[in-house]
């Protein structure tokens, strides 16, 4: 079986580009990545049929010279499925934008909470240990202790605010479907939650 480079090279390039896009956080980029990768893979499926030949018709074409139609059928199926998924992702990116003002995929809040809980507990214990075992704490040490303690509490509070924001869904479905302005919903969350510290590398 011979494989045409003109199909294979674009397939690889498209897969690489799409793969990188899919690793980013904003859903719109992920969506573009999915579309591009999908196309790349469809090309790959087409190369699986071997070299090109005549149109696969039952009559009038010598049978040993037709293109293999099965990969084309598979590719068509894949295209249809990619279309449906793309539409769904697009709707979800829009919905996410309505709800949070961005279309970025956030971290799992419960997961962060649990991870943070152990971290905070450990640091608290360490702090307590450190300051209790020492003899009379000086004034500077006390200030440092208080500062660190405050930092920890702020971290927890910021995370809790983030969690609240994540759970906060905006108005009712019909307004969202009919496309009310996102600003209408934004003021409910405007105050309070500070920016999430690690948004990921993209922006």
């Amino acid at each position, binding site marked *: *079986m011979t494989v045409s480079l003109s199909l294979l090279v674009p397939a690889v390039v498209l897969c690489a580009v799409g793969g990188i896009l*899919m690793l980013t956080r904003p*859903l719109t980029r*992920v969506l573009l990545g*999915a579309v591009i*990768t*999908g196309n790349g*893979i*469809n090309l*790959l*499926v087409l*190369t*699986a*049929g*071997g070299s090109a030949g005549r149109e696969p018709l039952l009559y009038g074409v010598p049978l040993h010279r037709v293109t293999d139609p*099965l*990969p084309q059928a*598979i590719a068509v*199926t*894949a295209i249809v*499925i990619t279309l*449906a*998924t793309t539409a*769904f*992702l697009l709707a*979800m990116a829009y*919905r*996410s934008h309505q*709800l*949070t003002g961005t279309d970025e*995929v*956030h971290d*799992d*809040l*419960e*997961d962060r909470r*649990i991870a943070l809980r*152990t971290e905070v507990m450990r640091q608290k214990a360490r702090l307590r240990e450190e300051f209790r075992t020492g003899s009379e704490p000086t004034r500077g040490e006390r200030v440092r202790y208080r500062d660190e303690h405050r930092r920890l509490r702020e971290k927890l509070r910021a995370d*809790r605010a983030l*969690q*609240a*924001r*994540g*759970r*906060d*869904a*905006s*108005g*009712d*479905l*019909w*307004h*969202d*479907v009919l496309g*009310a302005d996102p600003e*209408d919903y934004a*003021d*409910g*969350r405007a*105050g309070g939650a500070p920016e999430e510290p690690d948004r990921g590398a993209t922006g």
Partner: protein
Amino acid sequence: MNALVPLPVLLPLCATGLSLAFGTRLKRFQRFISVAVLTAVLALSVALMIAADRGGPLSVHLGDFAPPLGITLVADRLSGLMLTVSSAVTLCVLVYSLGQGMSDRDGETPVAVFHPAYLILVAGVSCTFLAGDLVNLYVGFEIMLVASFVLLTLGGTGPRVRAGSTYVIISLFSSMVFLIAIATTYAATGTVNFAQLAGRLGELPLGVETLIHVTLLTVFAVKAAVFPLAAWLPDSYPTAPAPVTAVFAGLLTKVGVYCMLRTETLLFPGNRLGGVLLAAALASMVIGILGAVAQTDLKRVFSFTLISHIGYMVFGIGLATREAFGGAIVYVAHHITVQTTLFLVAGLIERRTGTTELTRVGGLAKAAPLLAVLFFVPAMNLAGIPPLSGFVGKLGLMRAGVADGGVLAWALVAGSALTSLLTLYVMAKVWNLAFWRAAPPGQAEDGTVLESYDASDDDPDSGPDRVAGTGDEGVRGHHPAGRVVAATLHGHAVTTTTRLPRTMTAATAAAVALGLAFTVLAGPLTSYGDRAAAELMARTPYVEEVLGR
């Protein structure tokens, strides 16, 4: 008898059409048709299972194209059992969801989307169980996935959209890898039909065969949530409505396990990647259950035990002896039922107390004794306490491990003993927190709104009360203004009640009873599993049924 094979896929699809056409007007008709069709599918599956057990695999060539060309659907013993268990479980969950919707006051649904999506999910699951070629398997996956996207993000609240994005992206990724695997397979062998592949894959150069093998296993491991590829599961499942989570936990991951069983026996019989599978199984078991130990939310606890117990099935697949496959098959049947039941119970607890956060619930053993029983039985079943079916499944797997005798196999036997001990610990912890101790102060009282769609006080200009928070962020889906959010199963308000709806309790009890039935019928079940494993390993009945003698 062969004509029955496509029906588990066709019936739900036809019902979906009817449901969409008439569902918005005739809600009762929609409910009726869903229940009737799923009951019919259950009956069909039982018939298929018995027929496949008596007379060997059944197959249908759709459109009457000759075997390697057209689409082939095959039902053998394994498919029959999977179909039966899955349709029994989906029926229970459907009735449960009806109870969840019907017991509340009637409201207007934007689009009656739950029933159609659910039926399509069932069709997709049946399609994967019956698929006789890789492409049809892919299509079955996609049908199932697209339906699951809709169900997972039902209502489109913030947490669900966030959880849904992770799930959709992961699923998309695994579908793409699957397509690559299909392309590679076709380029290498010139066919995608399982029966033909069974003959041709062995003739390939070792490198090519291993490439295809690894790619396929990666896809199925993502679906089955085997450890290094399982991070998406506890992230995305817990936010969905309880019945949806239940059916996902029960079925979608097991579809991945089913595909692994199928490929490891029919396509790649040499067990060349057994070591990798065993290592992954050990990691899944131990890390999954340690994850469960750390959680404080009931649904997340169950998500992690799900990952952990997938390890048992992969353990059986990795050993690749007849006893091990038999044990894995029994374990799949047991685990589908038990895991679904536990999520249904979590839904009931949420309904009763307003939250599944374990630090906020308590005193349920006294307040709701029936609920306590409904939790206790499947929890002990999951941990594998002796008379129950979990013990039977684990025992079969461990015996296969001991019979294998390798270092890795012994490590897995030890690992699975440790895991079941830790599962018991986790379940005891849940029991102590939610049921045994006194109720903590501030437990949500009767009538707290969990989620609803309320069109009555729909005033976008009421600015100030939008800003005011309730201060109770623990209640899922609560609007900051205390007003409700568009997120519900049937368009009804879902509120907490001290009197749990009878339908929901009855459906959960039925699922518990199904789990107990596996205990009572442990003998026939294990011998069926053994016969199914023998058939899988023999390979010829399947190939001969599809390609002719």
